[in-house]
C-alpha cells in the first residue's frame, strides 16, 4: 500500500485463518510479500552467510593441513605460502562480514517496513471507522495497537531472513550427510522433530501467557493515558496517591504476566540451545559405532560432527523465530480485529445542488437509539432522540434550546453525519445525508463542537486544514476568518504569525482561544450550513454576538446553533425547544416565552433568580430589622425585670 492510500477497508480480510501452523506461515508470508525485493536480498545475504560460515571453517582446515602443519614440520614451500593462506582467510572473512552486513540491513529494513505497514493500516482504519466505534473503544487501547501490538506482530521478522538463509545451509548439509551414511544422517536430523515437539509444548504455554501480557500492556497504557489526561483534576483534588495506586495495580498485573512470559521463555531457550549440541554428541556416538564397523571413515564422522557444530548458532535463529511466533500471532490478531472492522458510515453517490444560498435542512421523524454502553445490558437500547421533525429554511438561523442532557448535541451532530439516525431521515437541500458522496458534506457543512480539537500544526494549518502549499484559502481569507472569530490579534502577537506552531491539542491556547480557532476554522470555508454546538460558551459574549450578527441578514448561510445566552437565542429566526430527546415546541423566542413553560424556565432563569435574590435580600433586611427590634424589646424587658 503506498503512503497516503485512501482509507478504505482492505479487500480481503487481514485476519489469519486456519491452524496455528497455517496462521504462522501466513503471518510470515504476508509480511515478506509486502517488501519482496528487500526480503530476497536479505535471504540471499543470509544464504551467503551460511556458505561463508562453512567456507571459513573449510579455509581454516585447508590452511592448517596444507600450510601450517607442513610449514612447522619444515616444508619450505609451505613456509612461502603462509602469507597466501593469510590472504585467503582474510578474503573469506571479508565475504562473511559483507554477508552479515547485508543480512542485517535488509532484514532490518524488512522488519521496519512490516511495522510501518501495520501502522498505516491501523491509522487508516481509525480514520475510516465511525464515531460510534470510536466511542466504544478507549483511546489508550487504540494507541497500544499502534505501539506494542505492532512491535509484537513484527518481532518475528528480525530473525526470519536469517532462519530462511540457514535453511539453505541445512538442506546442503542434509544432502551431504545422506550421501555419507543414512544412520549418521538420521542421528544428525533427529534434532529436527525434537525441536518441533519442544516448540509445540512451548507454544501451548506461551500463547496464553503472551496474550495476557499484551492485553495488560494495553491496559497499563490506558490507565496512564487517562490519568495523564486527567492531570489537572488529579492535581486540584490532590489524588496523585490514588492514581499511583491504580497505576501500580495494573503495572503489577503486567509485571506478573511478563514474569510468566519470561519464565516460559527462560525454560525454553536453554532447551533450544541444548538440542543442536546434543545432536552433535549423538552424531559422534553413532559415528563412532558406524566407524568401528567400518561403514564410514573417521574423517566423515569428524566432518559431520563439525558441520553440526558450525550450524549450532545459525540454527538458533529458528529458535528465535519460533520463540517470537506466539507473541507475533497475538499482536497480529489484535491489529487485524481493528483493520477488518467493517462498521462504517458508507458514503453514497449523490451530490448536493450547488447553490449560493444557505442549505435547506429537514429532519423527518428522526430517532436515535444507542446500545447500552455496559456489557451487562448490551441488549438494551437507550433512546437519545425520538420523533424529531424539523424544517430549517435556507439562510435562516435556528437556535436549539434545552436543559443539559436534552439531546441537543446528538441532534446537531446528525447534520454533519457524525452518526446516522436509527429512524427517519436527515435531508439537506432535499437530499438524504446518507446518500451524499464522500466529501460533499464537509464541503458545505461546518460543525463547531463543544470541545475543540487542535491539530499539532500551525495556526494556518489548523484553520485551513489544507495541505501545505494548497492555496484553496488565501492568507487574506484566513486573516478574515480569524478577525471575525476575534483571534486575529492573538495570532498577530505570535512571533511566527500564521506559521506559529500550536502544541499538541493546542496546549498553548486558552479554552476560549481554542473555541475561537474552531470558529475561524468553520468560517473560512464559507459553509452553506454552520452548526454551532454551544461552540462559544468560553467566548466573550460580545464576540459571540458579533459572530452571530454576521449571519443575521446573510442568506448564504443557514445557522443551527445550540445556545444558552438569551441574547444569542434572540437573534435566531426560530427557536426549537428540546427536552428528553423530543421536540417540545418550535417558534420564535417570544412565542415560546408566551406558551411554553419549560422554555420560559430556561430563558428567564437568571431574571427570576435575580428577582428572587432581591426579594430574599429585602426579606432578610426586614427580618434583621424585626430581630433587632425584638432584641431591643427583650433587653428592655430584662432591664425592666432587674
Amino acid at each position, binding site marked *: 500500500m503506498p*503512503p*497516503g492510500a*485512501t482509507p478504505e477497508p482492505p479487500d480481503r480480510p487481514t485476519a489469519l485463518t486456519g491452524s496455528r501452523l497455517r496462521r504462522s506461515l501466513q503471518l510470515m508470508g504476508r509480511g515478506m510479500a509486502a517488501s519482496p525485493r528487500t526480503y530476497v536480498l536479505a535471504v540471499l545475504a543470509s544464504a551467503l552467510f551460511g556458505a561463508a560460515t562453512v567456507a571459513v571453517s573449510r579455509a581454516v582446515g585447508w590452511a592448517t593441513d596444507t600450510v*601450517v602443519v607442513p*610449514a*612447522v614440520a619444515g616444508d619450505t614451500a609451505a613456509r612461502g605460502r*603462509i602469507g597466501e593462506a593469510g590472504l585467503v582467510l582474510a578474503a573469506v*572473512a571479508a565475504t*562473511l562480514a559483507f554477508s552479515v*552486513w547485508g543480512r*542485517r540491513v535488509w532484514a532490518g529494513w524488512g522488519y*521496519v*517496513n512490516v511495522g*510501518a505497514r501495520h501502522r498505516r493500516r*491501523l*491509522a487508516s482504519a481509525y*480514520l475510516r471507522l465511525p464515531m460510534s466505534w470510536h*466511542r466504544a473503544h478507549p*483511546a489508550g487501547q487504540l494507541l497500544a495497537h*499502534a505501539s506494542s501490538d505492532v512491535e509484537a506482530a513484527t518481532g518475528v521478522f528480525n530473525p526470519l531472513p536469517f532462519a530462511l538463509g540457514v535453511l539453505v545451509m541445512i538442506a546442503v548439509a542434509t544432502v551431504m550427510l545422506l550421501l555419507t551414511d543414512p544412520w549418521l544422517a538420521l542421528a544428525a536430523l533427529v534434532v529436527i522433530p525434537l525441536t518441533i515437539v519442544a516448540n509445540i509444548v512451548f507454544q501451548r504455554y506461551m500463547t496464553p501467557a503472551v496474550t495476557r501480557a499484551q492485553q495488560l500492556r494495553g491496559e497499563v497504557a490506558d490507565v496512564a*493515558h487517562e490519568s*495523564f*489526561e486527567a*492531570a489537572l*483534576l488529579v492535581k*486540584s*483534588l*490532590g489524588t*496523585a496517591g490514588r492514581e*499511583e495506586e491504580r*497505576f*501500580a495495580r495494573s503495572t503489577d498485573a503486567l509485571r506478573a504476566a*511478563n514474569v510468566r512470559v519470561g519464565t516460559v521463555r*527462560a525454560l525454553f531457550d536453554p532447551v533450544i540451545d541444548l538440542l543442536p*549440541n546434543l545432536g552433535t554428541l549423538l552424531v*559422534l556416538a553413532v*559415528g*563412532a559405532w558406524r566407524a*568401528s564397523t567400518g561403514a564410514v571413515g*573417521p574423517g566423515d*564422522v*569428524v566432518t559431520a560432527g563439525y558441520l553440526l557444530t558450525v550450524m549450532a*548458532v545459525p540454527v538458533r535463529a529458528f529458535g528465535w523465530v519460533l520463540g517470537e511466533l506466539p507473541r507475533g500471532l497475538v499482536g497480529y490478531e489484535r491489529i487485524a480485529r481493528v483493520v477488518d472492522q467493517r462498521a462504517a458510515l458508507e458514503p453514497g453517490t449523490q451530490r448536493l445542488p450547488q447553490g449560493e444560498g444557505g442549505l435547506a435542512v429537514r429532519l423527518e421523524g428522526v430517532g436515535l437509539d444507542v446500545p447500552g454502553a455496559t456489557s451487562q445490558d448490551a441488549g438494551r437500547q437507550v433512546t437519545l432522540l425520538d420523533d424529531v421533525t424539523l424544517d430549517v429554511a435556507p439562510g435562516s438561523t435556528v437556535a436549539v434550546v434545552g*436543559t*443539559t*442532557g436534552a439531546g441537543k*448535541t446528538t441532534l446537531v451532530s446528525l447534520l454533519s453525519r*457524525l452518526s446516522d439516525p436509527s429512524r427517519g431521515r436527515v435531508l439537506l437541500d432535499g437530499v438524504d445525508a446518507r446518500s451524499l458522496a464522500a466529501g460533499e458534506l464537509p464541503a458545505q457543512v461546518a460543525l463547531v*463542537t463543544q470541545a475543540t*480539537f487542535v*491539530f499539532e500544526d500551525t495556526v494556518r494549518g489548523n484553520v485551513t486544514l*489544507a495541505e501545505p502549499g494548497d492555496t484553496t484559502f488565501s492568507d487574506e481569507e484566513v486573516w478574515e476568518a480569524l478577525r471575525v472569530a476575534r483571534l486575529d490579534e492573538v495570532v498577530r502577537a505570535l512571533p511566527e504569525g500564521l506559521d506559529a506552531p500550536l502544541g499538541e491539542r493546542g496546549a498553548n491556547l*486558552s*479554552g476560549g482561544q481554542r473555541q475561537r480557532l474552531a470558529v475561524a476554522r468553520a468560517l473560512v470555508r464559507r459553509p452553506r450550513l454552520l452548526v454551532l454546538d454551544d461552540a462559544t*460558551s468560553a467566548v466573550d459574549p460580545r*464576540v459571540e454576538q458579533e459572530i452571530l450578527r454576521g449571519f443575521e441578514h446573510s442568506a448564504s448561510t443557514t445557522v443551527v446553533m445550540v445556545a444558552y445566552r438569551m441574547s444569542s437565542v434572540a437573534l435566531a429566526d426560530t427557536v426549537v425547544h428540546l427536552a428528553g430527546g423530543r421536540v417540545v415546541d418550535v417558534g420564535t423566542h417570544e412565542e415560546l416565552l408566551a406558551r411554553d413553560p419549560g422554555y420560559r424556565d430556561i430563558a428567564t*432563569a*437568571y431574571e427570576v*433568580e*435575580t428577582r428572587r435574590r432581591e426579594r430574599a435580600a429585602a426579606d432578610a433586611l426586614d427580618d434583621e430589622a424585626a430581630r433587632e427590634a425584638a432584641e431591643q424589646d427583650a433587653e428592655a424587658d430584662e432591664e425592666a425585670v432587674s
Partner: protein
Amino acid sequence: MSESARIASASSLGVMATLRRGVQISPQIVQGIGWTLALAVLAAAGRVVVPLAVQGTVDDGILAEGGPDAGRVATMVGLAAGALVLAGLCSALVNVRLVQRTEAGLATLRVRAFRHVHDLATLTQSTERRGALVSRVTTDVDTISLFVQWGGIMLLVSSLQILVATALMAVYSWQLTLVVWACFVPLYLVLRFGQRHVNAAFTRVRERVGSMLAAISEAVVGAETVRAYGVGARTGRRIDAAIEDARGSQGRAMRLVATTFSSGTLISNLALAAVVVVGAHLGVGGALTAGQVVAFLFLVQLFTGPVQMATEILNELQNAVAGWRRVLAVVETPVEVADAEDAVTSPRGPAQVSLRGVRFAYPGGPEVLHGVDLDLPAQSKVAVVGQTGSGKTTVAKLVARLMDPTAGEVLLDGTDLRAVSLASLRERVVLVPQEGFLFDGTVLQNAAYGLRDLESLGGAQDPRVRERVAGAFEVLGLTDWVDDLGQGLDTPVGQRGEALSAGERQLVAIARAYLAEPDLLVLDEATSAVDPATEVRIARALDSLTTGRTTITIAHRLSTAEASDLVVVVDAGHVVELGSHEELARAGGVYARMHASWVAQTR
C-alpha cells in the same frame, strides 16, 4: 519564573551512569545478583566445556590410533551431555532470576515515573505531549524489559565465556593471545565510535516513534473533528509522513547497527587469519608445536563467538539505554511546585485568602498579573469577573497553587502557600476547571472520586458511598437529571466522559468537588456549558451549602456575581474594582458596564 521546567527528551547521562541511576531507582534488579552471577559462570563454563569435549572426543576417540574407540566415545559423549544438561539448567535458572528481578525493578520504575508526572507542575506537564508521556511509562520501559529478557543473560554468559576462553588461550600461547587481543583493539575503537552514533540513532528513533504515535493519536482523539471537516485524507497523509519519518530513522539505526556488528564479524575472522600467519611463523621459529597452533585455532573460535554475540547485545543495550534515558528524564525533571522542606500542615476550618503584590508571567510570555493585592474574607462568596485574557483564571490557578507567583505571595489563613504542605493544601482548596474531565466509568464512580475517604469506605461499590453520592446530587438539585440518564447513577460516561455532553460533565464535576468537602472551592467557569435553569439551581444549592466555606468563582455569567458577597473586577492584570454587586453596579465603572451588557444578553 520566566522559563518553566521542561521534560527533556532523554536524560544526558552516559551509558554507565544511566545503568547506575536505573539500578538506583530499581534496586530489585541487582537483588541476589551474586547467585545469579555464580549460576551464569556455570552456564558459561558449560558452553566452553562442550566444544572442548567434542574436540576431545574426536581426537581421542574417533581419530584414536588403532581406529575409532566406540566405548571411549560413548563415555565422553555421556559426560559432555551431562555437562550440557547441567549448563542448560543453570541458564534457565539465571534467566528466571533475571526476569523476575528485572520485572520487579521495572515495575518500580514505571510507577515512580508515573507518579513523578503527576507531581510535576501543571506548566511543566503541558510542555510535553500526553501521548509521549504515556510512552515513557509504557513502550520505553518495555524496551528495557525486552532487552533484559533476551539480551541480559547472553551478555552475562558471553562476557564470562570471553574470560574463560582468554584464560584457556593464554595457557597455550601468551603470544598468540596477545595477537588475538591486539586484533580486537580496533574493534573496540570502532565500537566506541560507532556506539555513540548508534546511541544517537536510537534516541532519534524513540523520538520519531513518539511523534508518530502522537500523529496517530490525532486520528483517535480528534476523530470527531476529522469527520466533521472531512479531513481524513489529510490526517492520513500526515500520519503516513510521520510513519515514514519513524521508518527512515529506524532504517538508519539498523544500518549503523549492521555496520558495527559486521565489523565485529570481520575482525573476529581477521584474528583467525592473523593467528594462522603469526602461529605458523612462531611454529617455524620453534616457539610452538603444530598441535599447539591447531588447538589454538580452535580456541580462537571459542573466543570470537561470544565477542560477536556481545557486540550484538551491546547494540541492543544502546536501545535499552535510550529507553531508560527517556524514562529517567521524566524522573529527573525538577518539580517546581513542590513541598518546602519545612512545609506546615494547614489546619482545616474557614479559609481566608490574601494576595500580596502578586505578579505572574507564563513561561516566555509577558506579565499577565501586575501586582495584585486582595483580601478574601473567610466564608465569603467571591466572584472574579473580567474580560477574556484579563488574568482572572490566572488568579484562580495561583490560589489553588497550580503555579507559584513570579513575585509577591498568596496567603492562606496568613501562611504563604509555598510553606503549606501540598497534601493539606489540596485537602482544603479544590479547583474545578472548566473542562470537567471524567474517567471512563459510571456517574457514581466519577462523583465518588471526590470523596476523601473513598478507600476506607471500600470503594465506589459500597452502599454508603452510593448514598452519599446520591445525597450530593440531591442537595445540588440534580436528582431529576440523574434519573433521566439511562441507568441513573450507574450510567457509564464513556472515555473522558464523552458519552455525556460538556454541560453534563460539568454537573458531575461539581458533585465530585462538592463531595471533596474543601474549605475553599475555586470554580473556574465550572458551569459554563450548563443551561441557565440548571446553573441557577446549582448556584443556589452551592450558596446554601457554602456556609462555613469560602468560594471563589470565575465566571462570564454575571448571575454568579449578583449572588456573591464580594466582586473582584480584573482588567488587564490589575484589580480595578472591588466591592459588593450593589455597590459596583451603582458605581458606574467597568463592572456596571459589564453587568448592563450581561442583563441585555439574558433578557
